[in-house]
């Protein structure tokens, strides 16, 4: 009886304690470096590089990749609470969330390492890729200034167009639309030829936010955009109404594919790769995705045509994925050494070629494919909300993007959406002041 009870107790305790993640490295120093990330599509390449590193240094690097991204994000938060974060991890979130991780002491400030040897490591990266991970002096999150992650790759989000379908609709595939009028005309010509317009993952609202931010920069400039976030400019301002009108114009001129508002990006990518839509609003990662779906796809890349001539057109971009070092890891220095190697020229070129993504290390640019070079050319036009020292309330972002969905389905006017968003903004500011 006693044996049986002891066994039962042991099983219970084992099952309870077994629920804790066993591979976190907050407390224990070991020869193994553990990396958590969400990029499951790069597992093979990551493992190949890990093997190379082991052969070179004898240090074991273990990549643990988790999908979907939502589940990964929750895993990271849970690990942070239980102090079980691995040596290296990525955070898939806005700057407000990243700042919480930093303030809780989970992320190492890489400034001292970046500045070593006359800033050699820092200088290897695109400045815009580093900016996404940089907290400036006086940031609203009250984070100690510094660079808190090493970028693994860079990306930007642009308009992709199918050259064959453009030709079919009587459009010149070598001269895509350059201004707003031409862009609207393109929509009508595609519609007349029975071809669907633009597809994008607008069911995942962040992609709507991305295009809306592009046009906000173009219509009102960065300063006014930031002033809106700070609450100094109202969303009911005419410039914001113009931003919302961009989407109404696109809808009215048949630029948007049927059902775009509930479309997930994977579906949008399938439609574009299968030549069922002539335009796609997608990130530079699409080169790899389209290649996997249809290697013969004949497409070009263009900046979204500007709506206004007041300010230059900007596109979302910067660091695609970044790696953070656990500030509590006993392997800190070893981990930083690995990251330096991992983001060095040769490894970056290898990763870029194998996964068809843009490298974060600018020294490895010469070795990437021509189609990716087209994306790189527009890196100067890149901006990202994480580059700013301020961040919009999540509820306001949701109201803005859901409001745009309402415009696209013809339910609300740009003016109505502007007022709705401003009402949410006022409410959120009131709460924050309390």
């Amino acid at each position: 009886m006693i044996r049986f009870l002891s066994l039962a107790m042991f099983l219970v305790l084992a099952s309870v304690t077994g629920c804790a993640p066993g591979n976190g490295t907050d407390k224990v120093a070991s020869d193994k470096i553990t990396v958590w990330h969400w990029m499951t599509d790069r597992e093979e390449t990551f493992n190949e590089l890990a093997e190379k590193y082991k052969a070179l240094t004898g240090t074991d690097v273990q990549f643990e990749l988790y999908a979907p991204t939502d589940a990964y994000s929750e895993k990271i938060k849970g690990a942070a609470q239980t102090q079980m974060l691995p040596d290296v991890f990525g955070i898939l979130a806005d700057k407000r969330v990243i700042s919480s991780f930093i303030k809780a002491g989970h992320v190492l400030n890489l400034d001292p390492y970046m500045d070593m040897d006359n800033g050699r490591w820092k200088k290897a990266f695109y400045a815009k890729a580093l900016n996404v991970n940089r907290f400036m002096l006086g940031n609203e999150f009250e984070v100690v200034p510094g660079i808190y992650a090493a970028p693994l790759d860079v990306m930007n989000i642009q308009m992709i167009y199918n050259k064959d379908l453009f030709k079919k609709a009587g459009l010149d595939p070598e001269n895509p639309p350059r201004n707003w009028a031409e862009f609207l005309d393109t929509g009508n010509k595609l519609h007349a030829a029975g071809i669907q317009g633009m597809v994008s993952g607008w069911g995942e609202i962040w992609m709507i936010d991305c295009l809306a931010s592009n046009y906000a920069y173009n219509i009102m400039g960065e300063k006014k955009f930031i002033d809106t976030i700070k609450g100094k400019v109202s969303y009911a301002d005419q410039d914001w109404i113009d931003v919302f009108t961009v989407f109404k114009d696109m809808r009215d001129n048949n630029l948007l594919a049927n059902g775009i508002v509930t479309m997930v990006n994977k579906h949008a990518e399938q439609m574009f790769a299968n030549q069922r839509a002539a335009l796609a609003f997608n990130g530079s990662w699409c080169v790899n995705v389209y290649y996997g779906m249809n290697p013969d796809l004949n497409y070009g890349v263009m900046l979204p045509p500007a709506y206004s001539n007041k300010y230059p057109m900007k596109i979302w971009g910067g660091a695609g994925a970044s790696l953070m070092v656990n500030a509590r890891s006993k392997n800190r220095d070893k981990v930083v050494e690995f990251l330096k190697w991992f983001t060095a020229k040769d490894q970056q070129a290898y990763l870029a070629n194998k996964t068809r993504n843009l490298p974060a290390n600018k020294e490895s640019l010469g070795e990437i494919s021509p189609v990716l070079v087209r994306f790189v050319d527009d890196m100067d036009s890149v901006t990202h909300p994480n580059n700013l020292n301020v961040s919009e309330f999540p509820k306001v972002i949701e109201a803005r993007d859901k409001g745009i969905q309402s415009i696209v389905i013809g339910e609300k006017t740009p003016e109505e959406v502007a007022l709705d968003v401003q009402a949410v903004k006022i409410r959120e500011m009131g709460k924050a002041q309390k």
Partner: protein
Amino acid sequence: MKNGSQTQILMLENRSLRSFRNNMEHRKAKKIFTNYLFVLPAVLLFCTFHLYPFVNVFRYSLFQWDGIVPFSSAQFVGLAHFKDIFTANPQWWYSMWHAFYITLLTLIFQNGLALLLALTCDRAIKGAKAYRMIFFLPPVLSGIVVGLIWQWIYDGNYGLLNYWLTNIGLGHLSRAWLADPNTSLTCVGIVHMWKGFGWGFIILLAGLQSIPRELYEAAKVDGAGAWDTFRRVTVPLMVPVFVLVTILTILNTMQIYDLIVSLTGGGPGYHTEVPITRILAAMRGGSRLGYACALGIVFGLMLLVVSFIQIQASKLAKQE
């Protein structure tokens, strides 16, 4: 002398009785202790995985906390989250209405169909076993897979539904079914009913088969027709089963999530948002864990009230 030995005997008897009692009590205590030890693993698991999180949800709901910084630095806000939910969160109440709408559709159409099919299969028809298996197939499929399949059917550009409509001359009705605010919620409801009617079917069929056949024979002898037999024999005896199916349908449908994610993601706009998607939006999108916990409590209490009303109503129906 005689009295002394009698007293001695009595004392001995008392002592052995006491020792016997002590022994019995000891055995009883040991038995109780052993029983509790057997229950202990289950109690420990229950406390760890149910009670502790349950209590913590209440605790977190009183704090402004993002789930990342240590809880010790979370800000106590009292009932502010609850006040916000009841006074300044219209999206939450829209989402409740959407879940209620799908629940209403499900209660009427899904359970109606389930009852009809259960009545059919209850009779000795050819291939009844095969039908039972076929009807139970949709519930065992993953919600995400079902959602993706139906997405192909509803697709506005290359969907099967639009194709069929065009083929039968109703092409003017074609649309992006899931992106149209007039149809999106009902379309989600239809998929939910398709996926869920098998559960109701199985439970209702089990209920029907537990009704003694003699009652039907007696009703027949008394000259009752099919409708009268259904109304006066089947329905009264099936009330507990109807209650069970109704409660399960309400609880299951109000918590609809996977189909929403795979079909519409809550869009267009807020048109297919349901309580669970709003709770997750608060937790993931905004990192407002405390607020998400408060939403969860409000939602849980509402389900509790609905279930309570349902049980009381069924008791009344039984008495009648």
